[in-house]
């Protein structure tokens, strides 16, 4: 979804722009109420009426237009007559007094003008903003300097070296490089499934295969640094080193399944609260290891983790994005904005219907032109609908009244989330496990979820959400949310799906990987090739998308580590 562009004006609008005062003069007539539509009123208490209608019958029409040339007010049925009957040209353009939309009476259609939209936007922003960041400072707008991509190919000598070392370099490999089963060490499918997804996350894979973290040279392995809690630590567990070892094993060309025992051992040394032989949650594991990798290899010079720039470690560089949260007072319209870094997005399953979508049914229940009225008519949840729900403005409970600085008291408020910055790899976690603390029960939601293979995140970005909040007005580029311009593309491609089958207490995780446009099922030690429909009809629990276009960022330091 690109920024809104003004369609070419109809001839009447074009003529009006040339002959009349600029539309910006209407600005002084624009009245904006908090959370309301912008209105056109010459006088704040003015009650417009359609003169011809008032003469004929006392009833009021809900839509009224004011002619821009003579300020006469009329309803749609009298619009055409005003345009043609009035003396002199230029009475065709009118404005909807309740919605501040331009209307061409001659064409009988709503028309759009950038100058007018600009005026409306200014009126709205002066009354409804400023949005202040209360808890955390808004990230400073950083223009990333981009470096041009230079293609590289190995020369014959390098190619010979590569072929001798790794037989999978040649084209006749039975399966893509890096594909290798992982042995289940005893209820460790939660770990295997996440590891498979990480093994094939392009930025992470490139980092480790590019020797950016060499486990033989890692300073954290030396006995110099010790931890007080581990008395026998001659070696300190560095999860990044163990991950490096797994990458080496997976891409070694060996086909027998690999046992990630060392990784399990290291992880248990870090996450002692999760260290037990029993089934665990894959998402919890995912967050845990990213956290510990950060702890292991964070670059203390870069304190920018709090701002989500992701320069502190590879885990954040790959997975960290920034979420924007706006809380708006319903009484005065004051908005409080906060920014939070996030490693993934947890989505509620948007259950429209209670009846599950049966794949065995012959006819899919999709109707043309249906726009998902809160999922009422369709029986399937979709990822995009879940994201829409995530970024929807929600009214907070009466119990959770937000303290409005402007009103100086607690007021009911609206909360809306949006994505300020997209990570390189977007991980979506589908909340399938419901825990009710009240009822002391947990259950798994088996509802099927449709997800696209190509995903455009543009509608969920802060820039899009803000724009739609202000009525989708055509912004001039400078006036828009200045620090929300995303230089990176918002298009993503899926590469891994972690699915959960079975019950909450006894289930099984499996990862589907998309390599070279083929899908592979990684079920612990078993790696098999599957068709698309298997993936589409599986119960997605975690979805991994990678940005379609990656850019090189100019390195700020002379020696890049």
């Amino acid at each position: 979804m690109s920024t809104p562009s003004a369609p070419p004006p109809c001839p009447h609008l074009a003529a009006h722009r040339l002959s009349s005062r600029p539309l910006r003069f209407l600005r002084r007539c624009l009245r904006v109420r908090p959370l309301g539509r912008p209105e056109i009123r010459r006088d704040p208490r003015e009650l417009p009426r359609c003169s011809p209608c008032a003469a004929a019958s006392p009833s009021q029409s809900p839509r009224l237009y004011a002619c821009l040339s003579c300020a006469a007010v009329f309803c749609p049925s009298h619009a055409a007559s005003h345009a043609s009957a009035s003396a002199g040209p230029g009475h065709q353009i009118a404005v909807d007094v309740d919605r501040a939309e331009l209307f061409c009476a001659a064409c009988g259609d709503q028309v759009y003008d950038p100058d007018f939209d600009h005026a409306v936007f200014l009126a709205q922003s002066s009354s409804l903003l400023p949005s202040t960041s209360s808890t955390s400072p808004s990230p400073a707008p950083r223009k990333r300097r981009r470096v041009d991509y230079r293609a590289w190919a190995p020369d014959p000598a390098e190619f010979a070296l590569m072929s001798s070392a790794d037989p999978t370099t040649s084209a006749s490999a039975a399966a893509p490089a890096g594909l290798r089963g992982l042995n289940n060490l005893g209820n460790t499918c939660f770990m295997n499934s996440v590891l498979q997804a990480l093994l094939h996350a392009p930025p992470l894979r490139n980092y480790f295969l590019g020797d950016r973290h060499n486990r033989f040279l890692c300073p954290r392995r030396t006995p110099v640094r010790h931890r007080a809690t581990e008395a026998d630590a001659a070696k300190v567990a560095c999860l990044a080193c163990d991950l490096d070892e797994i990458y080496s094993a997976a891409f070694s060309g060996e086909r027998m399944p690999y046992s990630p025992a060392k990784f399990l051992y290291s992880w248990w040394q870090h996450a002692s609260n999760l260290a037990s032989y029993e089934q665990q949650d894959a998402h919890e594991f995912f967050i845990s290891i990213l956290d510990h990798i950060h702890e292991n290899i964070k670059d203390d010079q870069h304190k920018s983790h709090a701002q989500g720039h992701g320069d502190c470690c590879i885990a954040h560089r790959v997975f960290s994005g920034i979420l924007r949260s706006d809380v708006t007072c319903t009484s005065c319209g004051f908005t409080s904005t906060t920014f939070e870094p996030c490693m993934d997005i947890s989505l509620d399953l948007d259950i429209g219907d209670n009846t599950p979508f049966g794949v065995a049914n012959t006819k899919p229940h999709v109707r043309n032109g249906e726009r998902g009225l809160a999922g009422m008519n369709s029986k399937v949840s979709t990822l995009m609908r879940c994201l829409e729900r995530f970024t929807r403005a929600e009214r907070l409970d009466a119990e959770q009244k937000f303290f409005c600085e402007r009103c100086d008291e607690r007021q009911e408020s609206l909360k809306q989330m949006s994505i300020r910055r997209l990570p390189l790899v977007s991980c979506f976690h589908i909340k399938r496990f419901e825990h009710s603390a009240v009822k002391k029960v947990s259950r798994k939601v088996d509802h099927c979820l449709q997800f696209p293979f190509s995903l455009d995140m543009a509608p969920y970005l802060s820039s899009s959400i803000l724009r739609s909040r202000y009525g989708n007005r055509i912004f001039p580029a400078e006036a828009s949310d200045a620090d929300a311009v995303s230089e990176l593309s918002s298009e993503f491609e899926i590469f891994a799906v972690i699915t959960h089958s079975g019950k909450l207490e006894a289930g099984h995780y499996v990862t589907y990987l998309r390599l070279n446009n083929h899908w592979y099922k990684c079920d612990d030690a078993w790696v098999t090739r599957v068709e698309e429909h298997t993936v589409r009809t599986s119960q997605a629990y975690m979805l991994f998308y990678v940005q379609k276009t990656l850019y090189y960022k100019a390195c700020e330091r002379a020696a890049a580590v």
Partner: protein
Amino acid sequence: MSSSNDAPLSPRSQLALRCFEELLDCAVADVASECHRIARLGLDRSVDAEEEELRVWAARAAAGGDHHHPGGFGVAEEGGAGPGGGSKGGVDVFGQTHPAIAADVIECMNCGRPVVAGRFAPHLEKCMGKGRKARAKNTRSSTAGRTRSSNGIAASSYSPYSNAANTNRVNVPNGVTDGGCGTGGDHSSHVL
């Protein structure tokens, strides 16, 4: 909502009805105006794309359900439930088969003993002294014993072997979980 044609409405009802109709018209006009703007300004691409995706998905899902995917290499049961999942009589993408419990032998990095891969986790749990079945009593007494002996008092008589084993028990107090984290872990530990 339609008023009965028989009895004329009271003025109050007429007023209320007109109010309602006006509100309804207003709401409809609001939506129409917004959608008109979205369509005219070219902002509605995602709606079409989403519907198209849903159609494609439904079609492919229905088509796939009619026939099993071709055998070839890599025959596997879809949605294989049950832990340690594997195929029922088939080969993987490399033409290999694997037992239900991984037969690989690993050297435990905690105690050095060889362990079968498929049983590594339960072994490691006991070895490291974590999990529900951890036995905490030994470590406490041995730690106390060491401190006493370092003061020159020959208190506990333990062989060097058991000493080595005890020092391998790490982080005992916080290692015991209450088994609360099932497969569906709680979501409170991460941001958001």
